[in-house]
């Protein structure tokens, strides 16, 4: 390829003045210049897109008459313009092979797709690009299609000269690198390149020679290896003054560096976002699983509680029935035996046995007494008839008498009647707690309070001045030692959805506080 005094004027304005240079096969030449220096004009003239005002083009030793891109394409000159133009009604594959279809009548889609896949792979582009709608392509994708178009030649008949008019700018950094290495490979196979670009770094990496245009004139044509970026910039700007050139070099360098860094940053950011999203979704999954397990556990707990509650009610009913049976049947029977024995005692002719009978009656009365005690233990007789306060009061009195420990009672006077389950449970809790105090506390004084709180709960507090318990209270350890008192209390409290608090210090007594949600008193 050779140009001699190539000139192009638009009207009177010269765009290119007497540019002459030669280009040999496999050579990669860069074209540098400021905006408006004539880079695009030069490339368009070479591609036959414009007709030169003066001067001639020679290609492979023959004079080239520019007759449109169509002609240039036929002899192996390909142009990738600055802004890629695609035909929108056609698909991406048809766009890539537009004007260079394989097959003369019907395009051979199979082979076209194969070749397009190969070229896209070289450019690190996913082949799904081919299935996209041409109208919806991004700028970079359009540029990729335009580049793929000139690279999709038959490997047996490579393009002679490829003109790249500033195609790097809309490509991502990695793709720029891919394209550069592809240019090198193709140049080794004999394809020449003319690359117009502002990116000196790319040009110095890939070109053999550099042409510098200044105001439409070719001001320098030297081997890349024999020049420096600074010299090129000096020529581009048309000045050797240090203070003018340095900032431009600096700006160019930092611009490309910044571009590269921005690209890298964007990539890392995308990666980060992706991994964050992955982690987020993993977390969510774990949370969901956890929630499901907690839900299942809650359900189980509820079921367990209701079973236990039923068990407890059942037990109370049993006790009640047992107590009534004992009271109504056994005690009455024993009493009637006692009356009959009394009658017998007064009868004639048994003087010899009177003493024995009297002893028998005494022991019967003893048994009746014991049974009555048993009955009242099984079922506090007062609780059904007189309510919780009366039952606690009577039990506490009895307990105080039996153990010789005074019990201070502070029971709310207008407590009223509560649901049977609550009344019984509270009573049993009091019973159990007093039992504990008797057995372990060695207390001198016991205070028992029962109040309704403003927040619709029932507050039971039992305090003693005994030896207290070692903290913290470990229910599991207690149950292992077969001390079930506190455990029973805590179970009952839990069944009523209440809270249990134990306040104790070694040697300073113990306070047991139970709070049970309670509905308003029944009338």
């Amino acid at each position, binding site marked *: 390829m050779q140009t001699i005094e190539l000139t192009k004027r638009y009207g009177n304005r010269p765009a290119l003045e007497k540019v002459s240079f030669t280009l040999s096969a496999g050579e990669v030449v860069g074209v540098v210049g400021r905006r408006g220096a004539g880079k695009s004009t030069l490339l368009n003239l070479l591609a036959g897109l414009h007709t030169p005002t003066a001067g001639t083009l020679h290609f492979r030793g023959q004079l080239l008459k520019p007759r*449109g891109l169509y002609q240039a394409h036929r002899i192996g000159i390909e142009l990738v313009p600055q802004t890629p133009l695609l035909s929108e*009604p056609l698909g991406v594959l048809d766009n890539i092979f*537009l004007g260079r279809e394989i097959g003369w009548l019907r395009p051979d889609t199979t082979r076209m797709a194969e070749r397009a896949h190969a070229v896209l792979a070289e450019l690190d582009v996913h082949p799904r690009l081919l299935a996209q709608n041409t109208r919806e392509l991004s700028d970079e994708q359009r540029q990729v299609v335009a580049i793929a178009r000139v690279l999709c030649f038959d490997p047996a008949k490579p393009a002679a000269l490829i003109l790249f008019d500033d195609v790097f700018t809309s490509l991502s950094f990695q793709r720029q690198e891919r394209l550069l290495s592809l240019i090198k490979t193709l140049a080794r196979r004999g394809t020449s390149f003319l690359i117009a670009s502002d990116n000196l770094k790319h040009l110095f990496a890939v070109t053999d020679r550099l042409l510098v245009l200044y105001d439409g004139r070719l001001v320098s044509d030297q081997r890349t290896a024999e020049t420096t970026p600074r010299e090129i910039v000096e020529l581009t700007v048309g000045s050797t003054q240090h203070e003018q050139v340095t900032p431009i070099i600096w700006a160019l360098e930092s611009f490309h560096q910044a571009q590269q860094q921005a690209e890298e940053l964007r990539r890392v950011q995308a990666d980060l976002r992706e991994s964050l999203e992955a982690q987020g979704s993993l977390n969510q999954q774990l949370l969901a699983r956890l929630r499901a397990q907690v839900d299942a556990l809650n359900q189980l707990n509820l079921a367990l509680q209701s079973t236990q509650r039923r068990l407890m009610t059942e037990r109370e009913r049993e006790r009640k029935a047992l107590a009534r049976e004992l009271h109504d049947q056994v005690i009455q029977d024993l009493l009637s035996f006692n009356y009959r024995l009394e009658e017998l005692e007064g009868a004639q002719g048994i003087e010899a046995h009177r003493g024995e009978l009297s002893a028998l009656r005494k022991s019967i009365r003893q048994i009746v007494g014991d049974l009555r005690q048993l009955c009242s233990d099984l079922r506090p007789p007062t609780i059904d008839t007189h309510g919780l306060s009366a039952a606690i009061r009577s039990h506490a009195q009895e307990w105080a008498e039996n153990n010789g420990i005074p019990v201070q009672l502070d029971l709310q006077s207008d407590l009223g009647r509560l649901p049977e389950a609550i009344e019984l449970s509270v009573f049993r809790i009091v019973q159990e707690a007093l039992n504990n105090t008797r057995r372990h506390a060695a207390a001198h004084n016991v205070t028992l309070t029962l109040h309704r709180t403003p927040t619709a709960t029932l507050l039971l507090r039992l305090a003693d001045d005994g030896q207290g318990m070692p903290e913290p209270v470990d229910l599991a350890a207690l149950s292992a030692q077969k001390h079930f008192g506190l455990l029973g209390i805590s179970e009952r409290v839990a069944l009523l959805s209440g809270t249990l608090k134990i306040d104790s210090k070694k040697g300073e007594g113990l306070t047991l506080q139970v709070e049970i949600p309670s509905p308003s008193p029944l009338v």
Partner: protein
Amino acid sequence: MSFIKNAQKILQENIREYGMFIALFVIMAFFTWRTEGLFISSRNISNLLNQTGYIAVLAVGMTLVIVIRCIDLSVGFLAGFLGAVAAIALVFWGLPVYVVIPLVLALGIVAGLLTAFLVAQMGIPSFVASLAGWLIYRGAIQLVTAGTGTIIIPDEAFNAIGNGFIPDIFPAEAGPLPGVHKLTLILGLLGIIVFIVNEINGRRKKQAYNFEVLPMDMFILKLVFVSALVGGIIWVLAGYQGLSWTAVVVLIVVLVYDFITSQTVLGRHIYAIGGNPEAAELSGISVKRLTYVVFGSMGMLSALSGILFASRLQSATTTAGTLFELDAIAAAFVGGVSAAGGVGKIMGSLIGALVMLSLTSGMNLMGIDISLQYLVRGAVLAAAVIFDVATRRRGK
């Protein structure tokens, strides 16, 4: 349920493509109802196809012209003029038919290339260039028929093109199915089979490249619908005198052009130019060369249209071809060709021509006044273009 949903979705997405078929179907059904079956009778359908012939041929060529963002107004009088040339060649020069037809077709190509020269080489807008042609050919037809007036064509073979029917393999009353044109049936059946095989192959190929294809049920529905439509028309035609030579010519033209536009490199280039002339130029397509090709083909089809018309009237008249160009343009637009270029199918234009001619034929049968007929046809054309513009806007 999903079948109906699928059908709705496909119809909505491809309304531009299928709208024409539905419109034609509705129009035909309407006229059949209003004329108590007279419209769908064998004789009328056969007549309708023969009348459509010379407009359909022009519409096919016009489709390509409009696709590359041009227009050709000269085709009507060019057809009339070339019909007159054919008559003169037959009657006064005494040339045989098999010479006259290629000669006239060649003249048509030359005329088309002339227009193309003005458009491509001189850069004259096609509207102006072809308007000049319109005037010139109008003058030319009056010039060549000035001495004789209407030229009666006595040639049987030539007149058969516009009036004759293909021969049957059996005598009409013999063999199976008496009174039915057997060859027409066989050809129709073959056509349907080829169509189905083609469609299935095309679908396979598309799937192989992961391109989007119709869902299976919709695909079958389409095959059944098209086969039934074609089969129905063939059956109706076979009940009269079978396929006319005009219908055969139109079918060949449509099939060839449909193949070229949808399957070949040439077709792709034509659509690429219509879609974005600059992009096509930059990709190395010669827009000039293709302009010559498209206008050349338009000229050739104008000649064919002139031959069909002269043959149908068995004469060449001084007013032959009047308003053909506008009918052809209307048919193309009704058939879904876009005035913006780059969009339009050959099949669509054929359907468009059928729609316009069905309207005329149906309204004639109903005895509607000619002035009202123009109003209706104008409204249909406007509706078709409004529909085109509206669906395009929604597509974007």
